[in-house]
């Protein structure tokens, strides 16, 4: 029974991911004046699913290697270590998040 429930959860997650990917595809193809077949969206969703699985195990391993059980932004940056541009992009948002946090704390202290 528990297995069945787990299967259901995966099924729902996959459907949700499919929907999310479909939206991004619509957004992008509209901008490029293109279109995508439903099969394309399905295949891409499947690919993203696999990639998230890889990412999840990587992140878990990275955090474990650092002696943590919580995945932090450092682990995500390590994930993007091979692509300098992507690394820079993510570092940028992470830094912005940190800056926003410091600002928020400063306001709270006042």
């Amino acid at each position, binding site marked *: 029974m528990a297995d069945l429930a787990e299967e259901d959860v995966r099924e729902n997650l996959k459907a949700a991911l499919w929907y999310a990917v479909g939206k991004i595809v619509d957004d992008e193809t509209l901008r490029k004046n293109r279109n995508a077949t439903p099969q*394309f969206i399905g295949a891409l969703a499947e690919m993203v699913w696999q990639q998230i699985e890889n990412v999840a195990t990587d992140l878990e391993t990275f955090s474990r290697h650092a002696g943590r059980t919580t995945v932090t932004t450092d682990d995500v940056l390590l994930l993007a270590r091979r692509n300098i541009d992507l690394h820079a992009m993510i570092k940028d948002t992470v830094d912005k998040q940190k800056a926003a946090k410091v600002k928020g704390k400063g306001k709270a202290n006042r």
Partner: protein
Amino acid sequence: MPPKQTNPANRGRGAANKPAASRTPQSRTSSSGGRPTATGKNGSQARDREIVEITSDTVGEDDDVEEEDHEEEEEVVHSDEEPAKTIQPELLKALLHEFFENENTRITKDANQAVAQYMDVFVREAIARSAVERDGPFLEVEDLEKISPQLLLDL
């Protein structure tokens, strides 16, 4: 049904633009132009009357402006949802936890957001590369098959 809804709105705007013009000829022109498939004369007349009543409720320019404001408000709500065009962080969190081998593994909010950005780049990169591969309008699975090996190495 939808055309019926849009017609009064158009008429309302038209009336607002030309307040001097009488309503009846306007409704006639739009009923002949916009809805040529209208059923018998009686039916279209009745509908026109209906529409005139509706427009008379919303003729004033102020009313029109208000309507547009409402539309803008809705749009603002939509743009609030615009980040939903990426993979929602909540969904991603659920997915990550699904794949974590250890149940005790947690992820910070910032890290989750960073992963969301990572996956967003992944998806958009896949689409962009497929689009380069394909000359025609429709992106096909084979385009994805061509670009996926390099994409997976690059990200």
